[in-house]
């Protein structure tokens, strides 16, 4: 497009004219940045639905017995909460939103490799989400299997399981195509001079994630289709009444769904690896170790699924083997935490909201990670399997980890995405309130879990009531913080002060661009540093 006139006039991607105007210019866009925002709006909306369902469960738990809903309603609520949060919020969350927006920019590219496929993935996501939400309102009633769809119950229950599993299948397909797009993007769209080991760490984590999406998701896809066939034709793949093997379903399900937790957490680790060096103004410690540990987590993560099934019938050898591998997979995660903390050492730390959220992430992630080891060792697992302890553990990882990393990412990149700044003080307050609320909400569940409170029960013995009430109060504190945070971000994105190009003093490529960036990101060829974190 060089016509000799010189520099292209800067137009932000919001103002770029296309064939259509208004909403159509968004629905037909192939700009990775606009697609990213469309994902973000959908995901945020579904997240709020999930939060409301979560709070309803906490209200139900204020007293033993029926408080506001019947047992069957409770089953529907926790299932829907799980399906929405896992398949529609956490799995696509960071990669579809911030990956889409920043992967091309961070590697100096103009877009992802397949922009049309990218838009198609979004449409698949929306189709799957609509089906998942629809399954709640159909006559048969919301699915009540839990998000895990365990057979044989899922093969026999009268609720709308087929619609919900179809939704999960389509959402999985969307995830596969995003992963495929990102792998090719990393290999083919890097700017000249951008070597694999010059990439920032967020692209590295997205790359590792994309391989999991690509290789693990089809397994759960075909499993869900088999489950649908089982329901329709009474085949007996999984239903023991028909001679099938329910454990086989669990194996197939977790072959995907355990790697899927790394789809959730790896991009979160990538975000934190971006934020820590920026706010410490220090070169990241152990760049290669962090990059390779992402790949190691992705690789070993494929081999640990059995630790979800210690109590459901496996040979002793299989159990110790999966347990060993579970401990092995914890090592690269620990390497990352170690490196983040060492990056802070002797850095000039600037405590701004993204950094605050990142530190909260590290704190909660350590609690979630170490309790994960308790669950990974066979002897203790048998004690706390299917109790509130497990609920607390994975909320520390998924919400405390991925959730807070998402909040950190939005506080970090919002000035770049919208070209406006939010109120920093309010963002810190919101972080503080959420941190307190989060721990009050989930920590008691570790304790009552060890004492024997099962998960997924709408009722409980009266001695758990104080802890349950305590936990419910935490839920409302957390929600309050969430509302403050969202209000602050929305206000900032719409009416905040104009943000400079590099508000935090970051060294990666996105900060060399105007805020918000132009359609093709780089109107001039970017200058690539050998080391992306070029501080000292």
């Amino acid at each position, binding site marked *: *497009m060089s016509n000799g006139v010189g520099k292209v006039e800067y137009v932000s991607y919001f103002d770029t004219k296309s064939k259509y105007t208004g909403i159509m210019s968004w629905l037909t866009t192939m700009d990775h940045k606009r697609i990213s925002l469309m994902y973000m709006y959908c995901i945020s909306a579904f997240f709020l639905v999930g939060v409301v369902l979560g709070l309803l469960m906490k209200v139900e738990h204020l007293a033993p017995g029926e408080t506001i809903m019947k047992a069957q309603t409770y089953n529907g609520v926790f299932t829907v909460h799980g399906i929405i949060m896992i398949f529609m919020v956490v799995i696509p969350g960071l990669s579809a939103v911030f990956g889409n927006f920043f992967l091309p920019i961070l590697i100096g590219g103009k877009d992802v490799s397949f922009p049309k496929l990218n838009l198609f993935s979004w449409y698949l996501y929306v189709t799957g989400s609509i089906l998942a939400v629809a399954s709640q309102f159909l006559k048969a009633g919301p699915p009540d299997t839990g998000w895990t769809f365990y057979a044989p119950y899922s093969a026999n229950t009268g609720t709308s399981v087929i619609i919900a599993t179809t939704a999960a299948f389509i959402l999985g397909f969307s995830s596969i195509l995003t992963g495929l797009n990102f792998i090719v993007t990393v290999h083919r769209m890097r700017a000249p001079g951008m070597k694999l080991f010059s990439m920032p760490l967020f692209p590295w984590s997205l790359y590792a994630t994309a391989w999991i999406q*690509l290789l693990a*998701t089809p397994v759960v896809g*075909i499993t869900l289709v088999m489950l649908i066939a089982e329901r329709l034709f009474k085949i*007996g793949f999984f239903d023991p009444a028909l001679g099938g093997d329910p454990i086989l379903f669990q194996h197939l399900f977790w072959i995907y769904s355990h790697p899927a937790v790394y789809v959730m957490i790896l991009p979160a680790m990538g975000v934190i690896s971006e934020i820590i060096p920026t706010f410490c103004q220090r070169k990241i410690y152990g760049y290669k170790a962090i990059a390779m540990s992402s790949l190691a987590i992705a690789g070993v993560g494929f081999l640990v699924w059995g630790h979800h099934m210690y109590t459901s019938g496996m040979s002793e050898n299989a159990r110790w083997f999966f347990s060993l591998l579970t401990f092995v997979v914890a090592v690269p995660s620990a390497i990352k935490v170690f490196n983040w903390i060492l990056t802070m050492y002797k850095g000039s730390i600037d405590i701004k909201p993204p950094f605050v959220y990142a530190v909260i992430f590290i704190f909660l992630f350590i609690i979630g990670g170490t309790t994960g080891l308790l669950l990974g060792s066979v002897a203790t697992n048998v004690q706390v399997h299917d109790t509130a302890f497990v609920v607390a553990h994975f909320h520390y990882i998924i919400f405390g980890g991925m959730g807070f990393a998402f909040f950190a990412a939005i506080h970090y990149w919002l000035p770049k995405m919208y070209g406006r700044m939010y109120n920093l003080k309010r963002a810190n307050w919101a972080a503080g309130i959420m941190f307190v609320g989060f721990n009050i909400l989930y920590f008691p569940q570790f304790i009552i879990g060890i004492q024997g409170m099962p998960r997924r029960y709408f009722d409980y013995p009266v001695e758990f009531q104080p802890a349950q009430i305590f936990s419910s109060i935490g839920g409302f504190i957390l929600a309050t913080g969430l509302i403050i945070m969202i209000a602050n971000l929305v206000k900032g994105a719409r009416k905040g002060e104009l943000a400079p190009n590099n508000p935090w003093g970051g060294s990666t490529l996105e900060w060399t661009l105007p805020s918000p960036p132009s359609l093709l990101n780089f109107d001039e060829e970017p200058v690539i540093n050998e080391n992306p974190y070029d501080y000292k």
Partner: protein
Amino acid sequence: MSEHVVHHEEHRDDAGAKLGMWLFIFTELLLFGGLFLVYSVYRLQYHDNFHEASLELSVTIGAINTIALLFSSMTIAMALSAVQKENKKLALIMIGITLLMAAVFLFNKYIEWGAKFHHGLYPGSELMTLLERGHILYFSLYFFMTGLHALHIIIGMILLTICMVKVKTNKINKERFVLLENGALYWHLVDLIWIFLFPLLYLIS
């Protein structure tokens, strides 16, 4: 802001497109991988039943289909070479033969499935519920795996038909043939999966 319309520059990256196709093939292999896993588990468990049930299938039809698909894999590869050598007519003929072979395959599948249906042997039928466990699983897997494979054949045929039109209109030519190359790759995948399905379903007796 003045009239300033920026279009996406035409971005062409054949190597990238091919890489994308290979990745998609990995996904497809793992999709079938789940089924192969279930197949192996139940074949181990119901070894004799699987053996007996497989006698119901016609090895002849299966062999004809295998030959048809192998032959079509060759013709689609020849079509690609023809395009690269600017022999449009030959390319069209070769894609045509590939599509014909695919149609032969589907026709045979139709005959096979039709006969089973005629005997009342299909998922959810009354007869099925009377069979032994291993027989039910074998036939369910048979319909599931060959059905999914046939779906892939149909998708492949659509893809190759598009390629054929594009060869005809010169949109696929000596300089740009990545779509045909990807179509051929996909076709080889469909072929490859059949190469596994054929012995596992037909030749285990």
